[in-house]
């Protein structure tokens, strides 16, 4: 009973990111139900994501109930830097994986006490390429760029910049030292992400942090919103 070998062709359109998309939708539903705003921060390594969060968790702690998840290939260093600021903090170490995926975020959130939290920061693994392909279920994606990286980065990593709800340009305290062409950078951001809001900060001096805080306030779900939705 050895039948003839036949070729059979299946036409498909199975997205390779479908699995992640499902988990991201589940995260979104979870955050929505809790009235919790998740904001992911993406940048290259060393742009200053953790530094921005250090200041934010300290300076806004009286006003907004915040938590943070930090992703890195190795070490718990970032979570340690964010400790003792009144916010629950959890480190995800991804091992080999160069980006966070929705399921990793789901597992981290499960371990965390998110009751009553208003803002959850998700610091992605430092990488301007791969995170672009993975929706985490966050409400907003913030792309950070430190001026030491050069004016042309938005043109080199357009996929990520195009997704940004907000671009935070950081290490602005170094503008003069680097003779940085801010106008050129803004033009390059406009070219890849015409609609995106841009703010300039220095986590070192605190310059521009009020703009960042003002934007964060627009992201917080007003008290009672979840109840209104049900009515």
């Amino acid at each position, binding site marked *: 009973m050895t039948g003839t070998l036949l070729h*059979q062709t*299946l036409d498909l359109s199975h997205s*390779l990111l479908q699995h992640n998309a499902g988990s991201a939708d589940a995260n979104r539903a979870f955050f929505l139900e809790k009235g919790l705003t998740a904001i992911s921060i993406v940048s290259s390594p060393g742009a200053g994501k953790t530094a921005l969060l250090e200041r934010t968790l300290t300076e806004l702690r009286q006003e907004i109930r915040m938590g943070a998840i930090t992703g890195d290939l190795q070490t718990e260093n970032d979570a340690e830097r964010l400790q003792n600021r009144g916010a629950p903090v959890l480190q995800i170490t991804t091992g080999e*994986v*160069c980006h966070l995926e929705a399921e990793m975020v789901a597992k981290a959130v499960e371990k965390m006490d998110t009751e009553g939290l208003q803002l959850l920061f998700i610091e992605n693994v430092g990488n301007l390429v791969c995170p672009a392909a993975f929706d985490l279920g966050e409400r907003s994606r913030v792309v950070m760029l430190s001026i030491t990286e050069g004016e042309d980065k938005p043109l080199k990593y*357009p996929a990520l910049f195009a997704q940004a709800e907000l671009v935070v340009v950081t290490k602005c305290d170094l503008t003069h030292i680097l003779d940085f062409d801010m106008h050129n950078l803004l033009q390059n951001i406009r070219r890849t992400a015409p*609609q995106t809001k841009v703010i300039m900060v220095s986590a070192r001096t605190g310059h521009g942090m009020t703009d960042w805080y003002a934007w964060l306030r627009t992201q917080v779900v007003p008290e009672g919103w979840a109840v209104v939705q049900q009515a």
Partner: protein
Amino acid sequence: MHEAGLMAEAMNKAETLAMQCNADAVAGLTLRVGVLSGVALQALQFAFDAMKPGTVFEQAELRLEQVLPRLSCRDCGMEYAAQERGQRCPVCKGSNTSLLQGGELELAKLELIVREDRTS
């Protein structure tokens, strides 16, 4: 760097389908890869070659179809070929655009080898 994970996802899905069809082996596997998906074709090929020995893909050929970007203008409705995201509308010069194609990453085709007496 995440091409290996994506290739593994494609191969898992393809293997499941091959089993459902009672296939003996996979002859070919086609992925549709948007130019703006951020994925490197050589890295996909490399991952495939590394993972296929000893599997149903042992003899399979991997085909990678590139998809060129197309944008649509939300202001005037124009659809046009583009080199990059955010490329302005050629008609109204607007920048309020959305990506129609060029960002995809899909398992598009699977060619199976099935014995005649097993086809249903």
